[in-house]
Every structure is written in C-alpha cells, then in structure tokens.
C-alpha cells in the first residue's frame, strides 16, 4: 500500500498530484498488478482532502487503464506503465551520464545543465506538436 502526500505550494491541482504519485509508484515498481490503492475515506482522513478530489484521481487512473474499482472492496492496480520500471532504462541512463560528464567538462554548472535540458525539452515537445 502506498501513502499519498500533497504539496500545497506547487500550484498543481491535488487530484493531479495523486495521479502522479500512483504513476510514479508504478514506474518505480512500488505498486504491482493486484495491489490495492488506499481507500478513499482513508486518503480523505489522512490529508484533509475533498473526497471528490480522490474520486476524480481514481476515475482518471481507471480511464487510463491503470486501476479498476471493485465496488464495496476498493481500487486495485490492473495495469503497468509502458517501459516498465526505471531499471529497464539502463542504456539511456548511461548515455545521459556520459552527456552530463561532457557538459561538466564544458564548464556548465548544475543550474546551466538544468536550464539547457529544460529549454531543449520544451522546444523538442513544441516541434512534436507543430
């Protein structure tokens, strides 16, 4: 069973934060098929969060085919995320590490690396849309 938390300062809607946390747990292998998500009432009690918000998050996860609700029992994980766990990304990770080493040798500090990555990522996604 995973436990949810909320970042009140992030500006990300609470239901999206719950969805991200489930997807993240799936990617990290913390959640497997058949595992139960926390009961709506327990999430509500733990986070002082609106029940509609939890229901909305679970509903969207259900649309995405990741979980299924069994009435009167709870919500259970039914799907996996493409690409499996992070462990499967070994080669990509090694390539990224080589790139990071190159960037450091070129004299970039952490902030510049992050800014370069973010702006490249943004312009790449923009080209995809256009």
């Amino acid at each position: 069973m995973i436990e949810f938390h909320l970042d009140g300062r992030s500006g990300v809607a609470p239901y999206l934060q719950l969805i991200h946390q489930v997807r993240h747990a799936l990617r990290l292998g913390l959640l497997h098929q058949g595992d139960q998500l926390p009961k709506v009432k327990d999430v509500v009690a733990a986070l002082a969060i609106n029940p509609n918000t939890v229901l909305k998050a679970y509903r969207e996860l259900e649309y995405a085919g990741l979980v299924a609700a069994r009435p009167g029992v709870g919500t259970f994980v039914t799907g996996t995320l493409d690409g499996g766990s992070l462990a499967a990304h070994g080669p990509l990770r090694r390539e990224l590490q080589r790139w990071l080493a190159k960037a450091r040798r070129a004299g970039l500090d952490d902030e510049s690396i992050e800014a370069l990555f973010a702006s490249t990522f943004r312009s790449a996604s923009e080209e995809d849309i256009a």
Partner: protein
Amino acid sequence: MSAVIETEGLGKRYRTRWALAGCTLSIPAGHVVGLVGPNGAGKTTLIDLATGMLKPSAGTIEVLGGRPAVGPAQLARVGYLAQDAPVYAGLPVADHLRLGAHLNPGWDADLARRRVARLGLDPKQKAGTLSGGQRAQLALSLAVAKRPELLILDEPVASLDPLARREFLQDLMESVAEQQVSVVLSSHLISDLERACDYVIVLVDSRVRLAGPTDELLATHHLLSGPRRDPASLPDGLQVIAASHTDVQTTLLVRTSRPVLDPAWTVSAVGLEDLVLAYMRQAGPAPAAPRDGHRHLEVRK
C-alpha cells in the same frame, strides 16, 4: 446542476451603509465550496442572509430552492456553524447532544454519539473547558448530526491553531465523504481551502470576482516570465489577470485554456493562494509605484 444558494441583486443595508449590495451568485450543489474574500467583502452578511438570521434589504435569495428559514422543514435542511463555533459554556457535552436531539426533527443520535466518542470528548465535561479545537469539533458534530442537505460554515478554522485546523478539516472531509452533504464555507485562509474545497468563489465588494472548480482554476492559470514585452502583443485567448514589468523583464499572470508554447516565456504553475490574491487585488486602489528593481505585480483593469 441545481444550486444550493442562488441570489439575485441581493443587498443588506445598515442605516446608510450597505454591507452587501447587488450580489448575484449561484452556488452549485454537491461541492465543498470555499467562499473567500477580503474582510468587509460581505461574506458573513451573505451567510447570515442565507441562514435567515438577516432579512435582505434588496434583491432575493433562495437556499435549496426555498426562502431561508421560512419554516421548520426548511430549517432542518440547513446546518449552520457560526464564527468562533459558539457552544453553551456551562453545559456538559452530553447535554449539547440532548439539546440537539430535542431541537432537530432529523437528529441522528447514533451519529452524534459516535462522533463525540471518536473525538475523545468526555460527555460529562463542560463545553466551556474544552480547547478551541474541541469546541469547534463539538459544534460541527451538532451541525452534522442534524443531517442537513447543506452545511454552512462561517470562518470555521480562523481561530484555531494549525494542528486543530487540520484536524477540523479532516473531520469535515470525512463527514462529506460519509454523508454527501453540500458545504459552503467562508474563510480567508486560502491555503487550507486548496485541499478541502473543490469549488471556489472569490467575493470582492459584494461582487463575484471569480468562481469555478478548483482543479479548473489551477489548470488554466499560469505565471509567465520573460523578456519585456507589451501585453497587447500576446496571442488571442490569453487573458492577463496581473502584469508587472521591469526595464528588461515582464511577468504575467494569465488565464488560458491552451498550453503556452512560446519558448520566450518561462511558464510556471500558480498556487490557489497567489491566484486568488491576484483577483482580489483587481478591485483595490491602484497599487503604489514599484520601487526600482523590485518585482511588483500591478493589476490591469
């Protein structure tokens, strides 16, 4: 969707001063609605009109489709928790429940007992000796146990410390989950509302400045910062809520349903508190001139 509270040109005058004027709003059912606004915006007056404690000087108000407090049946449908959660200081907790049972036709004695036990309140303890948080939760228990269709709370957490505030909201959210009751709660503590309320209404000078589902408001507002430019040159569909400029930089709070793709902008999310404050400031007097180098959000009318 039906409305739990609907007003049309609603106003309340005290001698020559209007505490609320020309207020037209519709509060949808099935939500926990946060009513926010600066002091003096008319929140408490609106709530007092909705509960029938006050009579309107102008306009109309309907609560659950009827006139507020028009008879016993209407009274039984609405639960109300006044500011500072008043209880009878000299009466023990158990007598509050007995009083509730006598005064409310739909009283759920079982629910009331379970709640008081869960809160760990001693039935023999006098309400005056309870902590602020316990008193608020006792008052909420009474309001919930009458099994209302609509629960109205006026600044329920304003006087509580952060822990008691969180516990109160947890308790309230659990009640909403169990009973499917619509809730309208006023507050100026916006950070607390972000979790609890799925619908927000910003009231400034008796007017609704902003109303909508919390998720939608968060998803459609963004903070943009980038090189200085004229807001008039922005693409269509981008509504500027607040703008500030230095000699080299422009910062905008915008509302748009489309993603902002222009790479010149750094786009970040906006928390509910900053968002609501930006709308509140739209009404106020013109902001003071920004000091040099000081980033200042000035508001476009």
